[in-house]
Protein backbone atom coordinates (compact mmCIF):
# COMPACT_ATOMS: atom_id res chain seq x y z
CA UNK A 1 0.00 0.00 0.00
CA UNK A 2 1.16 3.51 -0.78
CA UNK A 3 1.63 6.02 1.94
CA UNK A 4 -0.59 8.40 -0.04
CA UNK A 5 -3.88 7.54 -1.73
CA UNK A 6 -6.33 9.29 -4.05
CA UNK A 7 -9.50 10.46 -2.32
CA UNK A 8 -12.83 11.21 -4.06
CA UNK A 9 -11.73 14.73 -4.99
CA UNK A 10 -8.60 13.46 -6.63
CA UNK A 11 -6.41 15.00 -3.97
CA UNK A 12 -3.65 13.08 -2.30
CA UNK A 13 -3.62 12.77 1.44
CA UNK A 14 -1.72 10.65 3.93
CA UNK A 15 -3.49 7.40 4.80
CA UNK A 16 -4.98 7.73 8.32
CA UNK A 17 -3.23 5.68 10.96
CA UNK A 18 -5.64 3.42 12.85
CA UNK A 19 -4.59 1.01 15.54
CA UNK A 20 -5.32 -2.63 14.53
CA UNK A 21 -7.50 -4.17 17.25
CA UNK A 22 -11.05 -5.45 17.83
CA UNK A 23 -13.18 -2.50 18.87
CA UNK A 24 -16.43 -2.63 20.93
CA UNK A 25 -16.15 -6.39 21.39
CA UNK A 26 -18.45 -6.72 24.39
CA UNK A 27 -21.27 -4.78 22.73
CA UNK A 28 -21.01 -6.77 19.54
CA UNK A 29 -21.09 -10.14 21.28
CA UNK A 30 -23.87 -9.08 23.68
CA UNK A 31 -25.88 -7.88 20.67
CA UNK A 32 -25.27 -11.15 18.82
CA UNK A 33 -26.49 -13.17 21.81
CA UNK A 34 -29.63 -11.06 22.10
CA UNK A 35 -30.24 -11.43 18.35
CA UNK A 36 -29.87 -15.22 18.44
CA UNK A 37 -32.13 -15.43 21.48
CA UNK A 38 -34.84 -13.45 19.69
CA UNK A 39 -34.55 -15.58 16.56
CA UNK A 40 -34.82 -18.76 18.61
CA UNK A 41 -37.67 -17.52 20.80
CA UNK A 42 -40.60 -18.59 18.56
CA UNK A 43 -39.18 -22.08 18.22
CA UNK A 44 -38.47 -22.72 21.90
CA UNK A 45 -42.05 -23.47 23.08
CA UNK A 46 -42.40 -26.21 20.45
CA UNK A 47 -39.05 -27.93 20.95
CA UNK A 48 -39.55 -31.66 21.45
CA UNK A 49 -43.31 -31.50 20.97
CA UNK A 50 -45.23 -33.27 18.23
CA UNK A 51 -48.30 -31.47 16.93
CA UNK A 52 -50.87 -34.09 15.89
CA UNK A 53 -51.89 -33.79 12.23
CA UNK A 54 -55.46 -32.61 11.74
CA UNK A 55 -58.21 -35.17 11.34
CA UNK A 56 -60.84 -34.21 8.82
CA UNK A 57 -64.28 -33.90 10.34
CA UNK A 58 -67.22 -34.98 8.19
CA UNK A 59 -69.97 -35.04 10.82
CA UNK A 60 -72.09 -32.24 9.37
CA UNK A 61 -75.85 -32.72 9.05
CA UNK A 62 -75.80 -32.75 5.24
CA UNK A 63 -73.03 -35.33 5.01
CA UNK A 64 -74.62 -37.50 7.73
CA UNK A 65 -77.78 -37.67 5.65
CA UNK A 66 -75.91 -39.18 2.69
CA UNK A 67 -75.53 -42.97 2.74
CA UNK A 68 -72.04 -44.15 3.70
CA UNK A 69 -71.13 -45.49 0.26
CA UNK A 70 -72.31 -42.37 -1.57
CA UNK A 71 -70.21 -40.02 0.50
CA UNK A 72 -68.05 -38.55 -2.19
CA UNK A 73 -66.87 -35.02 -2.84
CA UNK A 74 -67.19 -33.68 -6.35
CA UNK A 75 -63.71 -35.05 -7.08
CA UNK A 76 -61.74 -37.89 -5.36
CA UNK A 77 -60.63 -36.96 -1.85
CA UNK A 78 -56.90 -37.21 -2.59
CA UNK A 79 -57.27 -34.96 -5.63
CA UNK A 80 -59.31 -32.45 -3.66
CA UNK A 81 -56.76 -32.37 -0.88
CA UNK A 82 -54.01 -31.49 -3.33
CA UNK A 83 -55.88 -29.31 -5.79
CA UNK A 84 -58.89 -27.65 -4.14
CA UNK A 85 -57.19 -24.25 -4.11
CA UNK A 86 -56.46 -24.35 -7.83
CA UNK A 87 -59.99 -25.56 -8.49
CA UNK A 88 -61.45 -22.66 -6.51
CA UNK A 89 -59.28 -20.22 -8.45
CA UNK A 90 -60.50 -21.75 -11.73
CA UNK A 91 -64.10 -21.48 -10.54
CA UNK A 92 -63.54 -17.87 -9.63
CA UNK A 93 -62.09 -17.00 -13.03
CA UNK A 94 -64.81 -18.90 -14.88
CA UNK A 95 -67.63 -17.31 -12.93
CA UNK A 96 -66.40 -13.73 -12.68
CA UNK A 97 -64.87 -13.49 -16.10
CA UNK A 98 -67.69 -15.32 -17.89
CA UNK A 99 -68.55 -13.71 -21.18
CA UNK A 100 -65.52 -11.49 -21.15
CA UNK A 101 -64.18 -13.48 -24.04
CA UNK A 102 -67.55 -14.98 -24.94
CA UNK A 103 -67.24 -18.02 -22.70
CA UNK A 104 -70.65 -19.71 -22.80
CA UNK A 105 -71.35 -20.28 -19.12
CA UNK A 106 -68.71 -20.80 -16.50
CA UNK A 107 -71.06 -21.11 -13.56
CA UNK A 108 -71.16 -24.88 -13.54
CA UNK A 109 -68.47 -27.40 -12.80
CA UNK A 110 -68.70 -30.75 -14.53
CA UNK A 111 -67.35 -33.64 -12.47
CA UNK A 112 -65.71 -36.57 -14.30
CA UNK A 113 -68.81 -38.70 -13.66
CA UNK A 114 -70.93 -36.18 -15.58
CA UNK A 115 -72.62 -34.54 -12.60
CA UNK A 116 -72.92 -30.75 -12.74
CA UNK A 117 -72.31 -28.52 -9.75
CA UNK A 118 -72.83 -24.82 -9.25
CA UNK A 119 -69.35 -23.32 -9.01
CA UNK A 120 -69.81 -21.58 -5.68
CA UNK A 121 -67.73 -21.76 -2.54
CA UNK A 122 -70.57 -20.66 -0.27
CA UNK A 123 -73.43 -22.48 -1.93
CA UNK A 124 -71.73 -25.71 -3.01
CA UNK A 125 -68.70 -26.43 -0.82
CA UNK A 126 -70.07 -24.98 2.41
CA UNK A 127 -73.39 -26.74 1.86
CA UNK A 128 -71.83 -30.09 2.84
CA UNK A 129 -68.80 -28.82 4.75
CA UNK A 130 -70.72 -26.45 6.97
CA UNK A 131 -68.18 -27.00 9.76
CA UNK A 132 -65.66 -24.44 8.61
CA UNK A 133 -63.69 -24.38 11.87
CA UNK A 134 -63.18 -28.13 11.86
CA UNK A 135 -62.93 -28.73 8.12
CA UNK A 136 -61.17 -25.72 6.59
CA UNK A 137 -59.46 -23.87 9.41
CA UNK A 138 -57.97 -26.90 11.15
CA UNK A 139 -55.84 -27.87 8.16
CA UNK A 140 -55.08 -24.32 7.11
CA UNK A 141 -53.80 -23.55 10.60
CA UNK A 142 -51.72 -26.73 10.64
CA UNK A 143 -49.92 -25.81 7.42
CA UNK A 144 -49.91 -22.10 8.38
CA UNK A 145 -51.78 -20.73 5.39
CA UNK A 146 -54.34 -17.94 5.70
CA UNK A 147 -56.62 -17.88 2.65
CA UNK A 148 -58.57 -14.62 2.52
CA UNK A 149 -61.78 -16.12 1.08
CA UNK A 150 -63.84 -15.45 4.16
CA UNK A 151 -63.47 -11.70 4.20
CA UNK A 152 -66.16 -11.60 1.53
CA UNK A 153 -67.56 -15.10 1.00
CA UNK A 154 -70.10 -16.16 3.55
CA UNK A 155 -69.76 -19.38 5.46
CA UNK A 156 -73.42 -20.28 5.24
CA UNK A 157 -74.96 -21.21 1.92
CA UNK A 158 -78.36 -20.21 0.64
CA UNK A 159 -80.12 -23.47 1.46
CA UNK A 160 -78.58 -23.67 4.92
CA UNK A 161 -79.65 -20.13 5.75
CA UNK A 162 -83.17 -20.73 4.49
CA UNK A 163 -83.49 -23.90 6.54
CA UNK A 164 -82.71 -22.04 9.75
Amino acid at each position, binding site marked *: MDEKYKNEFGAFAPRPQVEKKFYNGKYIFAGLIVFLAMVALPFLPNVGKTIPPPVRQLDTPVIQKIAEKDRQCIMPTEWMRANHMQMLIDWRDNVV*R*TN*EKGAPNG*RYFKAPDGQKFLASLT*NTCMECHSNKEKFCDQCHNYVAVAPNCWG*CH*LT*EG*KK*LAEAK
Partner: protein
Amino acid sequence: MGIDRREFIRIAGLSTLLGLGGKGAFELLRPGQVEASMAAKPAAEGVVRWAMVVNMRKMDDDTAKKCAAACHRVHNVPNFAQPKDPKDALPPDIVNRYEVKWIWPEHFHNAFPGEEHPHMPEQMKNLPFLLLCNHCDNPPCVRVCPTKATFRREDGIVNMDMHRCIGCRFCMAGCPFGARSFNWKDPRPYITDTYPGYPTREIGMVEKCTFCAERLAQNMMPACVEASSGALVFGDLNDERSQVRATLKRYFSIRRKVHLGTNPQVYYIV
Protein backbone atom coordinates in the same frame (compact mmCIF):
# COMPACT_ATOMS: atom_id res chain seq x y z
CA MET B 1 -16.10 6.94 -12.18
CA GLY B 2 -19.06 9.18 -13.16
CA ILE B 3 -19.68 10.57 -16.63
CA ASP B 4 -17.83 13.60 -17.95
CA ARG B 5 -19.39 16.61 -19.62
CA ARG B 6 -19.00 15.33 -23.17
CA GLU B 7 -20.71 11.99 -22.32
CA PHE B 8 -23.56 13.76 -20.52
CA ILE B 9 -24.30 16.05 -23.47
CA ARG B 10 -24.20 13.10 -25.85
CA ILE B 11 -26.78 11.09 -23.81
CA ALA B 12 -29.02 14.13 -23.24
CA GLY B 13 -29.01 14.96 -26.94
CA LEU B 14 -29.86 11.42 -27.98
CA SER B 15 -32.75 11.18 -25.49
CA THR B 16 -34.13 14.51 -26.70
CA LEU B 17 -34.05 13.28 -30.28
CA LEU B 18 -35.90 10.08 -29.28
CA GLY B 19 -38.45 12.09 -27.28
CA LEU B 20 -39.11 14.42 -30.18
CA GLY B 21 -40.14 11.33 -32.14
CA GLY B 22 -43.08 11.12 -29.73
CA LYS B 23 -46.08 9.15 -30.90
CA GLY B 24 -44.44 8.78 -34.31
CA ALA B 25 -41.79 6.58 -32.76
CA PHE B 26 -44.45 4.38 -31.18
CA GLU B 27 -46.33 4.20 -34.49
CA LEU B 28 -43.13 3.09 -36.18
CA LEU B 29 -42.47 0.36 -33.62
CA ARG B 30 -46.06 -0.76 -32.99
CA PRO B 31 -48.60 0.54 -35.50
CA GLY B 32 -52.30 0.55 -34.76
CA GLN B 33 -54.40 1.55 -31.78
CA VAL B 34 -52.77 2.69 -28.57
CA GLU B 35 -54.03 0.63 -25.66
CA ALA B 36 -55.38 3.64 -23.76
CA SER B 37 -57.12 5.20 -26.76
CA MET B 38 -60.57 6.78 -26.51
CA ALA B 39 -62.32 4.86 -29.29
CA ALA B 40 -65.28 2.71 -28.29
CA LYS B 41 -65.39 -0.93 -29.26
CA PRO B 42 -67.56 -1.53 -32.31
CA ALA B 43 -70.87 -3.15 -31.48
CA ALA B 44 -70.55 -6.91 -31.82
CA GLU B 45 -73.02 -8.62 -34.14
CA GLY B 46 -75.28 -11.36 -32.93
CA VAL B 47 -74.44 -11.08 -29.24
CA VAL B 48 -76.52 -9.85 -26.36
CA ARG B 49 -76.25 -6.20 -25.36
CA TRP B 50 -77.96 -5.63 -22.03
CA ALA B 51 -79.54 -2.25 -21.43
CA MET B 52 -82.09 -0.71 -19.10
CA VAL B 53 -84.92 1.73 -19.62
CA VAL B 54 -86.21 3.73 -16.66
CA ASN B 55 -89.78 4.73 -17.42
CA MET B 56 -90.30 7.88 -15.37
CA ARG B 57 -94.01 7.91 -16.28
CA LYS B 58 -94.47 4.89 -14.02
CA MET B 59 -91.94 5.86 -11.37
CA ASP B 60 -92.84 7.24 -7.96
CA ASP B 61 -91.02 7.60 -4.64
CA ASP B 62 -92.38 4.34 -3.34
CA THR B 63 -91.28 2.29 -6.37
CA ALA B 64 -87.86 3.91 -6.40
CA LYS B 65 -87.34 3.05 -2.76
CA LYS B 66 -88.51 -0.51 -3.34
CA CYS B 67 -86.11 -0.99 -6.28
CA ALA B 68 -83.13 0.32 -4.31
CA ALA B 69 -84.03 -1.80 -1.29
CA ALA B 70 -84.40 -4.96 -3.41
CA CYS B 71 -81.02 -4.40 -5.06
CA HIS B 72 -79.21 -3.59 -1.84
CA ARG B 73 -80.70 -6.60 -0.09
CA VAL B 74 -79.61 -9.22 -2.64
CA HIS B 75 -76.14 -7.75 -2.97
CA ASN B 76 -75.43 -7.31 0.75
CA VAL B 77 -74.92 -3.57 0.38
CA PRO B 78 -74.24 -2.13 3.83
CA ASN B 79 -76.35 0.61 5.38
CA PHE B 80 -74.03 2.53 7.64
CA ALA B 81 -76.98 4.24 9.30
CA GLN B 82 -78.21 0.88 10.59
CA PRO B 83 -75.53 -1.14 12.37
CA LYS B 84 -76.29 -4.64 13.55
CA ASP B 85 -74.81 -3.79 16.91
CA PRO B 86 -75.63 -0.33 18.37
CA LYS B 87 -71.99 -0.12 19.46
CA ASP B 88 -70.94 0.33 15.80
CA ALA B 89 -73.13 3.41 15.29
CA LEU B 90 -71.42 6.18 13.30
CA PRO B 91 -71.91 9.96 13.44
CA PRO B 92 -74.27 11.28 10.71
CA ASP B 93 -71.59 13.03 8.64
CA ILE B 94 -69.55 9.81 8.50
CA VAL B 95 -72.67 7.84 7.55
CA ASN B 96 -73.15 10.26 4.70
CA ARG B 97 -69.56 10.10 3.51
CA TYR B 98 -69.22 6.32 3.81
CA GLU B 99 -72.48 5.60 1.96
CA VAL B 100 -72.36 2.62 -0.39
CA LYS B 101 -75.00 2.60 -3.12
CA TRP B 102 -75.65 0.62 -6.26
CA ILE B 103 -78.92 2.24 -7.29
CA TRP B 104 -80.42 5.34 -5.74
CA PRO B 105 -83.06 8.01 -6.45
CA GLU B 106 -82.03 11.56 -7.28
CA HIS B 107 -83.87 14.68 -8.45
CA PHE B 108 -83.73 15.87 -12.07
CA HIS B 109 -81.16 18.60 -11.51
CA ASN B 110 -78.78 16.07 -9.96
CA ALA B 111 -79.43 13.34 -12.46
CA PHE B 112 -79.13 15.60 -15.53
CA PRO B 113 -77.02 18.57 -14.37
CA GLY B 114 -77.26 21.51 -16.74
CA GLU B 115 -80.46 20.27 -18.36
CA GLU B 116 -82.77 21.80 -15.75
CA HIS B 117 -84.36 25.21 -16.14
CA PRO B 118 -86.85 27.20 -14.07
CA HIS B 119 -89.75 26.71 -16.49
CA MET B 120 -89.86 22.94 -16.61
CA PRO B 121 -92.87 21.07 -15.17
CA GLU B 122 -92.88 21.21 -11.38
CA GLN B 123 -93.69 17.52 -11.18
CA MET B 124 -90.64 16.59 -13.28
CA LYS B 125 -88.34 18.46 -10.87
CA ASN B 126 -89.37 16.24 -7.99
CA LEU B 127 -89.50 12.86 -9.69
CA PRO B 128 -87.13 10.25 -8.20
CA PHE B 129 -84.78 9.44 -11.10
CA LEU B 130 -83.21 6.07 -10.36
CA LEU B 131 -79.48 6.31 -10.98
CA LEU B 132 -77.16 3.36 -11.37
CA CYS B 133 -74.09 2.29 -13.30
CA ASN B 134 -74.75 3.09 -16.96
CA HIS B 135 -72.73 0.15 -18.28
CA CYS B 136 -71.20 2.46 -20.87
CA ASP B 137 -70.05 1.25 -24.26
CA ASN B 138 -66.87 3.23 -23.71
CA PRO B 139 -66.39 2.96 -19.95
CA PRO B 140 -63.74 5.30 -18.51
CA CYS B 141 -63.57 3.21 -15.33
CA VAL B 142 -62.30 0.24 -17.35
CA ARG B 143 -59.68 2.37 -19.04
CA VAL B 144 -58.23 3.68 -15.79
CA CYS B 145 -58.28 0.48 -13.75
CA PRO B 146 -54.64 -0.49 -13.18
CA THR B 147 -55.38 -4.12 -12.35
CA LYS B 148 -58.14 -4.78 -14.89
CA ALA B 149 -60.43 -5.54 -11.97
CA THR B 150 -63.13 -3.64 -13.82
CA PHE B 151 -63.74 -4.97 -17.28
CA ARG B 152 -66.32 -4.82 -20.01
CA ARG B 153 -67.98 -8.09 -20.87
CA GLU B 154 -68.96 -8.93 -24.40
CA ASP B 155 -72.64 -8.55 -23.51
CA GLY B 156 -71.98 -4.93 -22.52
CA ILE B 157 -71.98 -5.38 -18.75
CA VAL B 158 -69.20 -3.46 -17.04
CA ASN B 159 -68.37 -5.92 -14.31
CA MET B 160 -65.98 -6.01 -11.41
CA ASP B 161 -63.65 -8.74 -10.28
CA MET B 162 -63.57 -7.97 -6.57
CA HIS B 163 -60.67 -10.39 -6.13
CA ARG B 164 -58.48 -8.05 -8.10
CA CYS B 165 -59.64 -4.66 -6.78
CA ILE B 166 -56.81 -2.98 -4.90
CA GLY B 167 -58.94 -0.02 -3.82
CA CYS B 168 -57.00 2.66 -5.69
CA ARG B 169 -60.28 4.48 -6.56
CA PHE B 170 -59.09 5.54 -10.03
CA CYS B 171 -62.40 4.19 -11.35
CA MET B 172 -64.33 6.42 -8.96
CA ALA B 173 -62.43 9.42 -10.30
CA GLY B 174 -63.00 8.21 -13.85
CA CYS B 175 -66.74 7.55 -13.62
CA PRO B 176 -68.67 10.72 -14.51
CA PHE B 177 -71.89 9.31 -13.03
CA GLY B 178 -70.77 8.72 -9.45
CA ALA B 179 -71.94 5.15 -9.77
CA ARG B 180 -69.15 3.71 -7.66
CA SER B 181 -68.77 3.48 -3.90
CA PHE B 182 -65.77 2.75 -1.75
CA ASN B 183 -65.79 0.62 1.37
CA TRP B 184 -64.16 2.89 3.92
CA LYS B 185 -65.10 0.43 6.67
CA ASP B 186 -65.62 -3.29 6.95
CA PRO B 187 -69.24 -3.48 5.71
CA ARG B 188 -70.24 -6.67 7.52
CA PRO B 189 -71.40 -5.08 10.81
CA TYR B 190 -73.76 -2.87 8.78
CA ILE B 191 -75.56 -5.57 6.80
CA THR B 192 -78.62 -6.28 8.88
CA ASP B 193 -80.11 -9.02 6.70
CA THR B 194 -77.24 -10.97 5.13
CA TYR B 195 -78.27 -12.50 1.82
CA PRO B 196 -76.53 -15.87 1.42
CA GLY B 197 -76.63 -15.90 -2.40
CA TYR B 198 -74.01 -13.17 -2.83
CA PRO B 199 -70.70 -12.39 -1.11
CA THR B 200 -70.10 -9.25 0.91
CA ARG B 201 -67.17 -6.91 0.33
CA GLU B 202 -64.12 -6.12 2.43
CA ILE B 203 -62.71 -2.84 3.58
CA GLY B 204 -60.85 -1.07 0.76
CA MET B 205 -62.89 -2.30 -2.20
CA VAL B 206 -64.85 -0.35 -4.76
CA GLU B 207 -68.28 -1.66 -5.72
CA LYS B 208 -71.10 -0.80 -8.08
CA CYS B 209 -74.11 -2.14 -9.94
CA THR B 210 -73.35 -5.22 -12.06
CA PHE B 211 -76.70 -5.38 -13.89
CA CYS B 212 -77.18 -8.45 -11.67
CA ALA B 213 -74.75 -10.53 -13.73
CA GLU B 214 -75.17 -13.39 -11.26
CA ARG B 215 -78.96 -13.40 -11.70
CA LEU B 216 -78.78 -13.05 -15.48
CA ALA B 217 -76.63 -16.20 -15.53
CA GLN B 218 -79.56 -18.01 -13.93
CA ASN B 219 -82.05 -16.50 -16.42
CA MET B 220 -83.47 -14.14 -13.82
CA MET B 221 -84.20 -10.45 -14.27
CA PRO B 222 -82.19 -7.93 -12.23
CA ALA B 223 -83.52 -7.48 -8.70
CA CYS B 224 -84.51 -3.84 -9.21
CA VAL B 225 -86.45 -4.68 -12.38
CA GLU B 226 -88.38 -7.40 -10.54
CA ALA B 227 -89.27 -4.98 -7.76
CA SER B 228 -90.16 -2.07 -10.06
CA SER B 229 -93.65 -3.26 -11.16
CA GLY B 230 -92.97 -2.22 -14.75
CA ALA B 231 -91.17 1.08 -14.23
CA LEU B 232 -87.84 -0.48 -15.15
CA VAL B 233 -87.46 -2.37 -18.42
CA PHE B 234 -84.43 -4.56 -18.97
CA GLY B 235 -83.39 -6.55 -22.00
CA ASP B 236 -81.25 -7.19 -25.02
CA LEU B 237 -80.68 -4.10 -27.15
CA ASN B 238 -79.51 -6.22 -30.09
CA ASP B 239 -82.77 -8.15 -30.18
CA GLU B 240 -85.33 -6.28 -32.27
CA ARG B 241 -88.25 -7.98 -30.56
CA SER B 242 -87.07 -7.30 -27.02
CA GLN B 243 -89.06 -5.14 -24.65
CA VAL B 244 -86.34 -2.50 -24.33
CA ARG B 245 -86.25 -2.02 -28.07
CA ALA B 246 -90.05 -1.75 -28.23
CA THR B 247 -90.10 0.76 -25.36
CA LEU B 248 -87.31 2.86 -26.83
CA LYS B 249 -89.05 2.87 -30.20
CA ARG B 250 -92.34 3.95 -28.72
CA TYR B 251 -91.21 6.72 -26.33
CA PHE B 252 -88.62 9.46 -26.53
CA SER B 253 -85.78 8.82 -24.10
CA ILE B 254 -82.76 10.66 -22.77
CA ARG B 255 -79.48 9.47 -21.28
CA ARG B 256 -77.15 11.01 -18.72
CA LYS B 257 -74.18 13.15 -19.82
CA VAL B 258 -74.06 11.84 -23.42
CA HIS B 259 -71.73 14.65 -24.43
CA LEU B 260 -68.91 12.94 -22.51
CA GLY B 261 -68.84 10.20 -25.11
CA THR B 262 -69.08 7.22 -22.80
CA ASN B 263 -72.28 6.04 -24.54
CA PRO B 264 -74.30 5.15 -21.44
CA GLN B 265 -76.83 2.33 -21.78
CA VAL B 266 -79.43 3.33 -19.21
CA TYR B 267 -82.24 5.23 -20.89
CA TYR B 268 -84.77 7.51 -19.19
CA ILE B 269 -88.28 8.06 -20.56
CA VAL B 270 -89.46 11.48 -19.34
